[in-house]
């Protein structure tokens, strides 16, 4: 299980069975350059592996207006 903090909504999502950042973004219907992904304060590229128990921050980059 992976925990994702989604911003700017501030929603918490739990995902299982996603093995990479790219897979996780696909599950959230986000393209790789539409959000930044952070684990333990570090930015991750789409090819990075995810592990059970990971807590991620996914922040969409499009500013409204």
């Amino acid at each position, binding site marked *: 299980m992976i925990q994702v903090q989604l*911003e*700017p909504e501030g929603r918490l999502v739990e995902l299982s069975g996603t093995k990479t950042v790219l897979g996780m973004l696909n599950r959230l219907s986000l*393209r*790789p*350059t*539409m959000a*930044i992904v*952070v684990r333990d304060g*570090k*930015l*991750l*590229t*789409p*090819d*990075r592996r995810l592990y059970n128990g990971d807590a991620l921050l996914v*922040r969409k*980059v*499009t*500013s*409204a*207006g």
Partner: protein
Amino acid sequence: MKCSRCKAPAAVALPSHHSGFCEECFQIFFTRQVETAIRRQKMFTRDERILVALSGGKDSLTLMLELHLQGYDVTGLHIDLGIPNSSEKARKKVQDFCDLHGLQLQVLEMEKEGLPIPDVKKYVNRPVCAVCGKIKRHHFNRVAREGGFDALATGHNLDDEVARLFANTLRWDNAYLSDQGPVLPASDGFVRKVKPLYRLSEFETANYAFIKGIEIHSDPCPYSSGASFTSHKEIWGELEHRSPGSKFQFYDGFLKRGKPAFAMMEHENGPELLPCRECGSPTSAEGLCGVCRIRHSVQENKAKAEQQG
């Protein structure tokens, strides 16, 4: 993925540049893109004084910090729109940021200018976003002019520019297409306007802001739906995904080949500009400029409404 410069693990993947960077090298990449923008478009020099429009969003704060780190003489200007709950937050964010980095900041309160945006929304019968944008541009220009600044810089990024160009292209808006770009030279009463982040995408500025610890999360304006620009950005996000680099090609191609053609079509015989009787800003109207007119009509309609109780 490895960093294209130093082979350390990459933190940011950039398909449009066929590269990826670690956090350190990404900052070098970012700085170079800004340097290239300033140099190629002849935006300003290190001897000039630059006023930076600071909304409180990630792009304007990123721009301010990056120009400061590059050694430019920058002063921030934040406009406090006077919107309950929202404006205090934005203002505090800008003030904290400038304090933290030792940056010069001026704050202009629309309440004191007789133009708090809630009153504008209430008493002016026009879409509030358009009027608010006009009021902000007016005051940024006025402060820059009266303060003797050489250029006014805004944090518009590639996605902002592409979304705007796309909207103008959908309408084939000649006038806008003839003078949209990362530099608008000074002309009677208007200071030079520059957009040093125009080569960088929203994704790139978001990564930079994160690395620099800039508080990225900003509340959207409570009065704005932001709908049309956001949907154009989504369309372009999809195009960019299928064909990385399209955004920049579209914009850069416009600057090189589209804009000159539109500029030729759009004859330069616009109306003569005179200083506004009240505030001195350039205007084509007799006597008062558009923003002074808005201020008067807010005052009149407010007085009327209060009389009627």
